[in-house]
């Protein structure tokens, strides 16, 4: 898919080093590996993360500082080859559980203060590194020619290439490299490019630009690691760019076993995502002409089809309508019609609208809860029935009203419920 321009600059690459690595499973937020790259020696080394490191330094800035401690001594200056640039996100990096959990912490000796500085940056660099199998990355040494460093989690390859033709300016460079390392348009989301730009060659306060692909606008955009001039160090090592690519699907992991978390992120969600018929979801989106104004209608159809709004479905709708996933999740949790977990085959709706309430709907609901042994909003373990309390089914003249699947039943009495459910179960 690469354009002529990108093909030409790629062909000009000369490989200086190539290594392969195995993917690492994530255990409680750690892949338990650090990658150390020396662009002066064109070498790469995988170091273990020890329990002591985790206990004392946790991750992020802590890991960075620990790694620096191994590399530098009192004589190390900002432009010494030994000055390492370290990148790390913490054990929560790449989860969506907390604000800021996507941040990457960067450290080096600063050209401005000549002492250790740290800065942090958004985008997906730290998480992608982690998905590729590394809790932290350090780069030492100085290259003799302009190089591009690539860590590709999708193929398990790491390489250092002499790269003479790439642009220096970040906004061009990120576009070129995103295109070069993505296999298709969709895959561009998995690529992040770190670069410093031309100014860093001339001033001491150069920043690092960390790209993330904005697939709605169809361009890479940037976050900056700005403090202390880490971009200047990057250019001093003659690195044009660092490219990190995440594997297509991030390895699953749990931060910790926790009652609340398992309630909100139960296994059912994963199952639902696996079961999703993506083609059917795409057909729904097409039916509504991919029009974002009809996002709610699309999700209603998805809910009808899958009995839930799965992560995969949100992905598809988002990709094809350009509506952000955040907004789709906002919709999915705002409106009553949607559920993130699969609902039962038959939905039992007990009307608790005003008329039905006056006519004793609360007691009906309790009887159903007892009969099905689930509480309102729940689904039976066998997945057959879900029980909902709804406000008004529009048949108030028949109050109290219950809807079993599509069937509306009026003037219901508690004493009928046991029989009603027996009939349903035998169906």
């Amino acid at each position: 898919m690469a354009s002529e321009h990108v093909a030409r600059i790629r062909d000009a690459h000369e490989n200086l080093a190539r290594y392969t690595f195995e993917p690492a499973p994530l255990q409680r937020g750690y892949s338990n590996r650090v990658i150390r790259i020396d662009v002066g020696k064109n070498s790469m080394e995988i170091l273990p993360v020890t329990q002591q490191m985790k206990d004392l330094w946790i991750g992020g800035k802590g890991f960075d500082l620990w790694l620096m401690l191994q590399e530098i001594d009192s004589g190390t200056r900002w432009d010494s080859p030994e000055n390492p640039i370290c990148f790390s996100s913490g054990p929560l990096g790449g989860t969506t559980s907390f604000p800021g959990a996507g941040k990457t912490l960067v450290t080096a000796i600063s050209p401005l203060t000549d002492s250790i500085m740290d800065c942090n940056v958004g985008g997906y660099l730290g998480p992608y590194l982690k998905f590729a199998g590394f809790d932290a990355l350090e780069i030492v040494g100085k290259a003799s020619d302009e190089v591009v460093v690539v860590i590709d989690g999708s193929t398990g390859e790491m390489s250092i290439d002499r790269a003479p033709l790439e642009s220096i300016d970040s906004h061009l460079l990120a576009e070129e490299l995103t295109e070069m390392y993505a296999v298709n348009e969709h895959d561009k989301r998995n690529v992040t490019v770190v670069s410093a730009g031309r100014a860093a060659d001339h001033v001491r306060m150069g920043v690092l630009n960390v790209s993330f692909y904005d697939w709605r606008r169809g361009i890479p955009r940037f976050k900056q690691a700005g403090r202390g001039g880490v971009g200047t160090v990057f250019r001093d090592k003659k690195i044009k760019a660092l490219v990190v690519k995440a594997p297509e699907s991030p390895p699953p992991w749990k931060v910790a076993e926790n009652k609340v978390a398992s309630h909100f992120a139960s296994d059912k969600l994963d199952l639902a995502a696996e079961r999703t018929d993506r083609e059917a979801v795409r057909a729904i989106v097409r039916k509504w002409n991919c029009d974002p104004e009809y996002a709610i209608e699309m999700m209603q159809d998805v809910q009808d089809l899958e009995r839930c709004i799965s992560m995969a479905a949100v992905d598809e709708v988002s990709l094809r309508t350009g509506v952000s996933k955040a907004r789709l999740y906002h919709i999915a949790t705002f409106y009553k019609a949607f559920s993130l977990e699969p609902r039962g085959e038959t939905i039992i709706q007990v009307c608790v609208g005003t008329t039905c309430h006056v006519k004793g709907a609360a007691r009906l609901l309790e009887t159903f809860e007892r009969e099905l042994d689930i509480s309102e909003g729940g689904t039976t373990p066998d997945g057959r029935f879900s029980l909902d309390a709804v406000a008004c089914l529009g048949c108030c003249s028949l109050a109290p009203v219950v809807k079993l699947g599509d069937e509306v039943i009026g003037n219901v009495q508690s004493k009928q419920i046991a029989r009603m459910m027996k009939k349903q179960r035998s169906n």
Partner: protein
Amino acid sequence: MASACKVKAGDLGKIADRVNASFGRYKAMLMVCTGTACVSARSFSIRDRLALKIAEKGIADDYLVVGTGCNGFCAVGPIIVVQPEGVFYQRVTDKDLDEILEQHLVGGKPVERLLYEDPATGKVHTRMDEIEFFGKQQLIALRNKGIIDPENIDHYIARGGYAALGKVLEAGDPEAVIREVIDSGIRGRGGGGFPAGIKWQSGRRAAGERGEVPYVVCNADEGDPGAYMDRSIIETDPHTVLEGMLIGAFALGAREGFIYIRKEYPLALVRLEKAIEQARSYGFLGPDVLGSGFAFDVSIHRGAGAFVCGESTALMASMSGRVGEPRAKYVHNVEYGYRDRPTVLNNVETWATIPVIMDRGASWFASIGTGDVAGDPWAGSSGTKAFSLVGNIANTGLVEVPMGITLREIIFDIGGGIPNGRSFKAVQTGGPSGGCIPASKLDLEIDFDSLSEAGSMMGSGGLIVMDDQTCMVDVARYFIDFLVDESCGKCTPCREGLFALKRILERICRGEGEEGDVQFLEELCGTIGATSLCQLGATAVNPVMSTLRYFREEYEEHIRDHRCRAGVCKELITYRIVADPCTGCLACLKPCPTQAITGEKKKVHVIDEEKCIKCGICREVCTFDAVEVV
């Protein structure tokens, strides 16, 4: 249905004549109600079987079966009305069809046992217009209920449908339409009661000033629990809504219209879609409406179950594919509404009334109802209003009555009073934004302003009648509970304030109320009412305020005496079997889910209070009224 050729204004009369002539050839038409309530009692099957049986008998040329929308008297459905005599059959089942066929259609004698018997007087009524329920009604928005097939546009045209549109397009004067609507005094039927004509005027002005094409929108969200007028109007007569929107669009210069309807109303949705399709094929919607050069079309947006989406700004957010959160209204929708264009939003019933106003004239409409609206629509409430009359009342169903009728007339004359020998306690109007009106106000002449003065609201038109077994504290708790769920959460007074109300009310219902709670409730209500962002929060306190105003002693009883006089609040009641009426029949023993009842045959049974979970099943199964709540 006729061909898909485009109809011109002059052809409407011809279509009507043709359809009416074809109806005239039948000896009788059997109107089978296929509204949602009757459908739940299998009226689709009744309609189809009846048609089949008539065909089998070879009398299909003499009798026509028509599936209509809601007849209104849902309590006694499924309903068949034999026109033109108007014989009214109720609670019809598949098994009764042969009898109707043989005895009535062939034999000419109505089937006595299916006729309606007035429970109060014991009189049997043969014809629909003899029944008290229909007596005081005056039908405008619901003029075609039970008379036409909602899925057949020809039926609507035969009843004079789209003639008003033809007239308006022929006259070609949008300003005159707006003047007519203002003069009619019609106020919005969706709750707020804002004069429709004035809204249109502002919309037209804003569109003109900014040089933008405005939109018209129909609010069919109907989230108000206990109300189903809008659903019924669409199910019985979807074309009148379309015609109203067409007239409004012409007056405003709009080219696109939207209908926002709840997905929970599947039947209404299907009928609406069909109606739009048919109107398009006749050329009533499309690039050249009735050959006049005026272009207009309608699309549907489905709601996803959020009460707040009935609020105008939230509705427009939802139509844009976002969550339904309201915004502050210092910028009006008529200026910046849907897609930031001038937008006129009206309720289903408002749109459904417009064609009649254009047809019969503003002064005719203004003459119905209260006040003199000739010079100022705010001076009164003209026309009629549809209500869903439900709850503890003998005749439940849908009624349309002139404004200014008293509650007593609606509840006791039309509604037939309170059944089961109980007495009237209150009537709830206006849904979660409204309040409860006590017996002392039964002679209130209802219109927009009188209801507000009484501490309630017109709302969309739910009238929920409550008997003395209804606990007013529990009703207040119920509404606040509903609203806590429905609050969009954008602003603090509503999100947190309602939650605080809920906690106090729940405490009172559990018998844990404290001195000072009532005063605190009042104070809190004042703050929430004054500071909420949208009307949901601002009016949410009405159920509490109105019950505090009229039923304060019940709050005090709950708090001071831990007593719920209606026998509703579970923590304050016990179930007991009274020795005298109990025959020892054993009927209640088995259904009791906790085996709390013990007893032997022919001996008085006893409930073990420890085990009793107060589910009330024993009371339901007892045929001797031996279970009492104290």
